[in-house]
């Protein structure tokens, strides 16, 4: 009893410190880079709602992420809508595509579900490649940031940073709320034992679909925000390798943990960004010239991390820490 009280206070303190750090971060670090991280953290958390708490592995989340970015970009650039509406439209786009893909994919279980989401997302990729407004290979360029509520100028990186931080924190809070709600408990029951959840009278397909749509909508929000931050949207965001990347972030951080996907997103984005430097350093230490090209070969490194995580590190960083924590507190009893 006392122990769980302490634990709660500990977590509250930890989250408080993290939030203060996030508020102060843009004074020390490059804000656009931080915003990109926040967008990916929200993306990975939304993805984790499915894999970690419902047990559904979607290989098609790039579809929601990319499509929302394109729609938000188009709304802000071509239709001249206010920023808030652009983000909202992106979120709705994510939800609607999630509804269509979800309705089809939940008709099959397990590994088939994964293959269906991958195939349908690939179909959307081809649509994005051919549709006139996406700009094909060039992407959608020059998305204006606009003004929040008509008077806060978002062209200042600092203002935009706090908007993105607010969006990410609100999204995370919603996810935590969903996980701890009765609805979230049913999702967990489906993950642990689907036939049993059915025999208890739950309409499993409806729960799965709702979880899928929620995850897609939040992914859409993340995608739309990212398009707003960077000012452009390209095919990379809709490509299957983006779906793979978000799986990797979640896996590295820890499937089914709340903080895991955030940690994973931060690590993977930093790695992508710093890989060139790491390669140069490795080259100077080992005097193997090949390492100098490491920055151009991100996929080799991400593939390697995938293999290591799956073989030896399936709990992820946060999962591993929680496991140690549990074992030590279990031993003291």
């Amino acid at each position, binding site marked *: 009893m006392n122990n769980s009280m302490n634990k709660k206070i500990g977590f509250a303190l930890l989250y408080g410190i993290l939030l203060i750090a996030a508020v102060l971060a843009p004074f020390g670090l490059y804000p656009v880079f931080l915003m990109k991280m926040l967008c990916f953290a929200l993306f990975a958390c939304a993805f984790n709602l499915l894999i970690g708490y419902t047990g559904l*592995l979607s290989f098609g989340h790039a579809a929601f992420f990319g499509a929302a970015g394109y729609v938000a970009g188009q709304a802000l650039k071509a239709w001249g809508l206010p920023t808030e509406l652009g983000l909202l439209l992106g979120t709705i786009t994510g939800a609607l595509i999630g509804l269509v893909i979800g309705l089809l994919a939940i008709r099959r279980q397990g590994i088939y579900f994964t293959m269906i989401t991958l195939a349908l997302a690939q179909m959307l990729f081809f649509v994005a490649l051919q549709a006139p407004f996406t700009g094909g290979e060039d992407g959608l360029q020059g998305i204006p940031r606009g003004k929040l509520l008509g008077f806060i100028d978002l062209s200042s990186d600092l203002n935009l940073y706090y908007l993105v931080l607010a969006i990410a924190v609100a999204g995370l809070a919603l996810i935590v709320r969903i996980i701890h709600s009765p609805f979230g408990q049913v999702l967990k029951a489906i993950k642990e034992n689907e036939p049993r959840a059915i025999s208890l009278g739950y309409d499993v397909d409806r729960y799965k679909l709702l979880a899928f749509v929620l995850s897609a909508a939040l992914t859409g929000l993340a995608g739309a925000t990212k398009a707003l931050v960077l000012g452009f949207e390209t095919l990379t965001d809709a490509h299957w390798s983006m779906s793979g990347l978000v799986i990797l972030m979640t896996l590295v951080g820890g499937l089914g943990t709340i903080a895991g996907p955030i940690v994973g997103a931060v690590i993977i984005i930093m790695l992508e960004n710093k890989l060139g430097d790491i390669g140069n350093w490795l080259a100077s230490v080992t005097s193997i010239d090949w390492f100098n090209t490491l920055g151009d070969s991100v996929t080799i490194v991400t593939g390697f991390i*995938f293999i290591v995580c799956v073989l030896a590190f399936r709990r992820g960083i946060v999962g591993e820490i929680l496991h140690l924590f549990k074992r030590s507190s279990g031993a003291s009893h």
Partner: protein
Amino acid sequence: MELFGIPLQALLSQLLLGLVNGSFYAMLSLGLAVIFGLLNVINFAHGTLYMLGAFTAWIGLSYFGINYWWMLILAPLIVGLFGIIIEKTMLRWLYKLDHLYGLLLTFGITLMVEGIFRSVYGVSGQPYSVPEALQGATNLGFMVLPNYRAWVVVASLTVCFSTWFVIEKTRLGAYLRAGTENPKLVEAFGINVPLMVTLTYGFGVALAAFAGVLAAPVIQVSPLMGSNLIIVVFAVVVIGGMGSILGSILTGLGLGVIEGLTRVFYPELSATVVFIIMAIVLMIRPAGLFGKEK
């Protein structure tokens, strides 16, 4: 001569190209199905191993001067051996876990191998010329048949149906089918199931590499040729269901042909038509055309 306003020659040549693609779909989905049946692993790396097959053939020719016909035998053996190493050192540890880890591991292998080939050879394709004996075309009167494409279709159909024969009609195939149903019981009868699993994976991989060698002269050999294909093959597998060998072969060929016809009548849809068919099949017959839900 015209049919539906399309010159017959164009229609037939697209149909043939569809059959060629269909044979690749058939061989890859067949391998995926055999591997999934026994290992319960969806081999994401299948497309990459197909790419490795094509590259092995290309490397063999341009560095060592080994001709197409030798590589048609050597490349599947080399890549199959690579597959066996993957199975022995990595996949083996995942059988008791959720299916998704097998998929993620093979996805990681895909990224790594593809990344390495991209960093060495770039993304542009390497040309591989058609072997001398199969160059040129035969005039059949109603169409001009490129010899090499006809050979691809005949060779892959032969391999596919031999595989079907071995699995459905021989003693070895009976062990394999029994292992798919209940590996523990098969092991109790004194059959070395782990060895069977390794060889099955090696065989599925060799099949993908064989398809890769066949494909090398048709399309340019490039590091990206596999991952683009594997997603279509996944859709093929969802449409056909992995329950039946013959089903995988027929679905693969059929979808190749449909794709070819779409390229004639409505080219904008040719990249997506397989996915659209998948969506329709999921609505009407969720278990797939030949599927038994496993």
